[in-house]
């Protein structure tokens, strides 16, 4: 029956293109959105992943950076430093702001960025790779991402504005852009001054001593220092991803639903009309001794093949998109993950199964005797 399904499908190319194309586009909706969100989730932790810190210490209850703010009194830094197992601490200041490249038209040069205030003796939390210039900004200096500098047309020595303050571009970092923007580094002193000399810090980045477990040291920090939350880097990154996930769950659900409904509508219609068009041939098979179950199988196989090809096509388009997005100058990364493939694949099978149910009654009701009357 698979062969019959194949042959039937490929005999009517227009119908095949409509059904496969329709399903592919519908599934593409789900698949590419999944890939975009997966990409965002990976990008969103770029800074955390590459910070070099083993533990992030924040204001009690704060477990991530995006859309969060954490303020710790400066006195905490010393307390954390005193916890056994802690090798070094780097207090940083953090806020989301924009980089203004003052040479350019302002609307061109608005770049959203995480602004990190870095102390001169930072052992973690700085730019992991420097393309040009300094790796820790001194007073009056800033380090921004190379791609952002190129886009804004600024080079080392140029003036840029961060937090409304004019600074000299002293360093360019490699690949520190994320979906939300890029990461810029200024000196902790400048940051503190701009914020009004509060003396507070946002996070304390901890490196643990060789052989110590970050989880164990984090637990110790929470026990010995009041009103802080200490998360090992991996846990902190996972929380960050979860924030994005939580924000996007509803969107994903709605898009999947839309994709499902469109895919189902296209398939149901094409499977139904395809069966209708072959009424007589199914009648002939019945007359020859095929059971209705055989014919359902052919119809189901037809639906499965169309949906399968549609799924493969949507996957291919997503792969092409993900490969070509970096060349489009979009700071978006599409990442296909296994869970998404399984979910959209499952969706496809449900679509095929449901669409093949529609013609069941039609086939069951076929009277093979009519074949002998030219019907």
């Amino acid at each position: 029956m698979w062969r019959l399904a194949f042959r039937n499908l490929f005999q009517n190319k227009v119908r095949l293109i409509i059904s496969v194309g329709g399903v592919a586009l519908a599934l593409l909706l789900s698949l590419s959105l999944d890939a975009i969100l997966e990409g965002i989730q990976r990008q969103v932790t770029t800074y955390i992943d590459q910070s070099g810190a083993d533990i992030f210490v924040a204001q009690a209850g704060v477990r991530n950076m995006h859309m969060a703010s954490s303020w710790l009194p400066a006195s905490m830094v010393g307390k954390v430093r005193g916890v056994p197992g802690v090798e070094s601490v780097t207090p940083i200041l953090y806020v989301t702001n924009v980089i203004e490249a003052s040479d350019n038209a302002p609307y061109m040069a608005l770049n959203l960025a995480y602004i990190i205030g870095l102390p001169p003796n930072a052992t973690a939390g700085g730019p992991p790779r420097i393309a040009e210039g300094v790796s820790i900004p001194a007073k009056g200096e800033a380090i921004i991402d190379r791609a952002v500098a190129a886009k804004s047309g600024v080079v080392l020595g140029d003036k840029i504005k961060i937090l409304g303050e004019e600074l000299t571009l002293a360093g360019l970092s490699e690949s520190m852009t994320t979906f939300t923007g890029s990461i810029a580094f200024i000196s902790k002193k400048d940051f503190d001054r701009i914020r009004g000399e509060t003396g507070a810090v946002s996070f304390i980045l901890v490196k643990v001593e060789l052989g110590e477990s970050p989880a164990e040291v984090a637990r110790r920090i929470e026990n010995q220092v009041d009103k802080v939350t200490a998360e090992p880097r991996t846990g902190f990154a996972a929380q960050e991803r979860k924030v994005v996930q939580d924000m996007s769950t509803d969107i994903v659900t709605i898009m999947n639903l839309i994709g499902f409904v469109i895919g189902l509508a296209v398939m149901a219609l094409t499977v139904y009309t395809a069966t209708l068009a072959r009424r007589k041939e199914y009648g002939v098979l019945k007359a020859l001794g095929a059971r209705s179950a055989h014919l359902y199988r052919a119809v189901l196989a037809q639906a499965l093949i169309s949906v399968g090809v549609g799924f493969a096509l949507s996957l291919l388009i997503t792969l092409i998109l993900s490969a070509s997005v970096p060349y489009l100058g979009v700071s978006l990364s599409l990442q296909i993950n296994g869970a998404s493939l399984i979910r959209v694949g499952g969706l496809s099978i449900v679509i095929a199964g449901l669409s093949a149910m529609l013609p069941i009654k039609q086939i069951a009701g076929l009277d093979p005797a009519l074949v002998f009357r030219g019907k």
Partner: protein
Amino acid sequence: MTNATFQVSQVTKRYGVGSTEVTAVRNVSLSVAPGEVVLIMGPSGSGKTTLLLMLGALLKPTTGSIQLNGTVLSALAENRLPDIRLREFGFIFQDFNLLSALTVLENVAIVAELAGLKSRAARQKAAAILTDLGLGERLNFLPEKLSGGEKQRVAIARALVNDPALILADEPTANLDSKIGHEVMRLLRRIAKEQQRSVVIVSHDQRIKDIADRVLWLEDGQFKEVTTMAIDPVCGMSVEQEKAISTEWDGRTFYFCAKGCRDEFMTKPQR
């Protein structure tokens, strides 16, 4: 080889009820021996198709019974009938009814697969039968590329592929020109004889009378007069016994198409 005896007893079919009731077939009895070719003729509306549908287990008789090898088909449960049709009957239709998307080979093989053969075996069997029917060069053609005669030969191959006891054909020559139609029917006859399969053909085509062993005349759902056919031992033609020239020899009756054949026969009757 099969030893089926097909027995139809007192079969009646009524369509509808009350004032719209039509008796399409009434009290028809018939038995067909293995290898026998029976032609049922009759005007349009005489009940030929109805009778054929009942013979082929596609329509339940209102009364009467149909037996194949001692199994009463007319008493079987509905869900047993597809298998009977698949394995015991071969069907040949007026408008060929090949599956348009399948190749010649696949059209035949699919029916063997339905009967449980594996794809490879089904294709091998189909190819052998098609080649025997002169379609060896056409195996991978789509039906639309075939002539009418070729299509009907594919249909014959399809009817044969599951080694049926009985082949049922409804107006098999109606869509063929007379020469081709006759050729195809001669082919069907040859197979029936070689493989000892029974054939029932329903037709109003007078020109194929000579390929039948027996011609029955259906009118108003009933058989009128039975014509028994015989083969001229000299020229091989099929002749109606009632109208043919005959002669007795060695306790048997022989029938001839013309005096010439009888005269030739008499010169060497022991052949």
